């Protein structure tokens, strides 16, 4: 309990530091969004003070001291009020992010967790049955698959499973004919749309988990406590899971934490290829359209997701490894 409280305190502290940096870093840069807009306008003729004031008002260029701005910003962060998007005016940034976020978290998040669990289980089996086909097949296949470039796998799947065989839809998160709602019809449709991007992520990330877990497990299989467990006549399953795998998974948790933290930020490529309206898709468009409020909110989301993932993995470590609890 004390361990969790300590980790929670650290989490809040880093979160505050990240939020603060997110505020000060853009303000250390010279110029402002208004300057950029005016510079563009001034190419066509002189810009009056009134125009400038109008642009600043429209963009919400802040006034007051830096401290007052900071407090206002903190209030906005707490109330999740990130202003209005430039490119998708007049939609608010928060409404756009909250629409996109579930798609990314469900698609990439779930697939990342599934890939980790599946890869770990296969890795355990491969190490336990070392030297048999149960080892060589996933090990060779895993290292082969993980060398596929992400976009190449995506295009291959799109072409064959989408255009040629028509098994799965090729773009979007749901059909144009359905409207998002919690109905079986919509959920089925959304799952069908998620299949190809999910498969892409699974294929490219599974191999790494298999090989990582297999190698860690082969190390723990050589440890004395595994030999001693065998000498004591424990059942094979107990030795494999509770003695070898249970210890082998610990170093892999760090990698899992990193992968989980990258869920929100690392989905740009796959969402772009499949036209999937998640965070990555949104971020891409925000950067292209120089949509500062949207970008600021998205960067904050990415930072927070990394911190949350690390926090969760820390807690998981505490549960799984008694040595960290002290």
């Amino acid at each position, binding site marked *: 309990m004390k361990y969790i409280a300590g980790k929670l305190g650290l989490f809040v502290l880093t979160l505050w530091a990240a939020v603060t940096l997110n505020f000060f870093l853009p303000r250390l840069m010279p110029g402002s969004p208004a300057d950029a807009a005016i510079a563009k306008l001034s190419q066509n003729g002189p810009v009056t003070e009134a125009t400038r004031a109008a642009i600043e008002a429209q963009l919400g260029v802040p006034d007051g001291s830096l401290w007052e701005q900071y407090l206002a910003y903190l209030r906005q962060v707490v109330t999740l009020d990130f202003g209005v998007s430039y490119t998708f005016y007049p939609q608010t940034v928060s409404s756009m992010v909250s629409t996109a976020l579930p798609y990314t978290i469900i698609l990439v998040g779930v697939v990342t967790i599934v890939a980790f669990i599946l890869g770990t289980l296969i890795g355990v089996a491969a190490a336990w049955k070392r030297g048999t086909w149960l080892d060589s097949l996933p090990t060779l296949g895993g290292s082969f698959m993980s060398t596929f470039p992400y976009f190449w796998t995506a295009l291959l799947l799109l072409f064959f499973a989408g255009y040629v065989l028509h098994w799965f839809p090729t773009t979007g998160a749901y059909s144009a004919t359905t409207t998002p709602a919690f109905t079986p019809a919509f959920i089925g449709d959304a799952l069908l749309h998620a299949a190809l991007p999910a498969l892409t992520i699974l294929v490219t990330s599974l191999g790494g988990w298999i090989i990582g877990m297999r190698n860690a497990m082969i190390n723990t299989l050589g440890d004395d*406590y595994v*030999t001693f467990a065998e*000498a*004591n*006549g*424990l059942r094979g399953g*107990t030795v494999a899971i*509770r003695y070898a795998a249970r210890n082998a998974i*610990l170093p892999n948790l760090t990698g899992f934490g990193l992968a989980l933290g990258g869920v929100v930020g690392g989905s740009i490529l796959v969402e772009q290829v499949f036209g999937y309206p998640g965070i990555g898709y949104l971020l891409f468009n925000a950067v292209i359209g120089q949509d500062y409020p949207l970008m600021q909110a998205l960067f904050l989301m990415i930072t927070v997701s990394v911190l949350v993932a690390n926090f969760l993995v820390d807690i998981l470590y505490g549960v799984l490894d*008694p040595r960290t609890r002290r």
Partner: protein
Amino acid sequence: MTSTEQTVPELVDGLLDVRDLSVVYESPGAAPVQAVDHVSFTLKRGEFVGLVGESGSGKSTLGFALTRLQKPPARTNGGKIFFDGSDIRELDTEMLRKQRQGGFAMVLQSGMNALNPVRTIRNHFLDIFRAHGHVAPADREARAAELVRKVELEPSVLARYPGELSGGMRQRVSIALALSLEPQLMVFDEPTTALDVLVQHAVMDTIQALQKSENFTAILISHDLGIVLEATERVLVMHEGRIVEDGSSRDILERPQDNYTRMLLSHYADPRADVVELPGFPDRHARVAAGVTRAEAATSEPTVVTRSVRSADSAIVVDHVSKVYPPPRRGEKPVRALDDVSFTLEPGQSLALVGASGSGKSTLAKLVTGIEKPTEGTVRFGDVDVTRLRAKGLRDLRSNVQMVFQDPYAALNPLHTVEYTLSRPIHNMTDLRGDDARARLHELLETVGLTPTETFAQKLPHQLSGGQRQRVVIARALASDPQVLIADEPVSMLDVSLRAGVLALLEDLREKWGVSLLYITHDLLSARLVTDDIMVLHDGRVVERGVTADVLRNPQDDYTIRLLDAVPNPRRLREDVA
């Protein structure tokens, strides 16, 4: 597979009958090594037998083969192991697993790592009870508590994780776990080797008491003939994969038949005796009184080449030194590793610093070499205050004060040749370059007895034996022509038969080159062989000091007496051995 004559051994009270057992190591890309070579012996019920041999003799391989725990590349390639009448080589996996309850159990060498770090001790017991079902669920807790009490631990350890227990406690837990199988045969593979001397002694006492009270048959595998003769009634001596001698402990001690056994025995002596002699080491007391060097008295080949003597001219003066480390965890007390220690190491003197682990002897070595600073007090080398030295001064100090480390396997970079390892300190600490440096390198190798030097210079650490590696470590320490050598347990990792050679080298360096020696050890016999004076450390304090021979023959402090009692002594047989 049909065996034509499956004779059940006709032993009235026999438990184990090993016939022509062979085990081979078949590493890919290497020639197969026959680690166990046609070994035969029998064990009677209730017998306590020692299996002794030096590293590479095949004793642990034999132990693993007997309990069917060997893993590739090791493979049993011949012979039969009859356990309680049936050949355990023919058991299938599930029968073998069941056989481990009420059959044979094993306690591993590094008992400290034999427990799963993420499971409580209680769960270790429950796993075994569940796997075999020989204890009813309702009785399991009580049984686990009873078993831990048998190895002299409190039942409260059941709730702890292995990481929360000391090395000795963990080894006791693994003995209790093996006992929980109610085995007829227990194989102890170096059960105390990784433990501190005093703990070692206590754990061995527990094993002996258990063997008597539980009346299991036991095999004690050890490199230390002293420990084995003290504990067991019969001894098998193993050498290069074969059993070279099999006899009662008394016969082995008093009438050894094999040359190898005789050689092993010759390396034991009682450090309390009036006259202590080992091969190459005539009694030091008489020799020093007569002003004769070791090499002259032993009329053996001197290990050190003669050269112009550069005697040490600076003494090390440690003056009222204390060292306090911050608490290991929050809420605990700071650790006082050294408490008001003073001594002087005169030029050319040899001083032993003895104590069990945690006594502060290694901390003292760190202070003398300037690696750490004392909390109070001063350390002086000649007229230099070691505690005030910074980078440049420390470099100069280190060319005069050099360390020889405990573990020759870890002290050498496995990727570098001996030549490279030795050329670095020559380059960094002396002005010798080119041919002069090369000449110095070969002189060093010759000094430590690694000849022909051309061959040894090109070797990598893994191509050398433990004793040879430790010689390289000593040569490296000598590269800067130091006045003082600090040797931290330099022979504790070596086989008994190799120890005397390394000790002779240290003694000759002091007598012929005038190097002073600070010899840190828990091994009182070796201290008696190579030091003039001794200082006994306990919990950071000096509890006894004086002339080595006097202190060991007539110890005053209780702690010194306990250390002396813990020295394995083959001549102290089990009382019940006829």
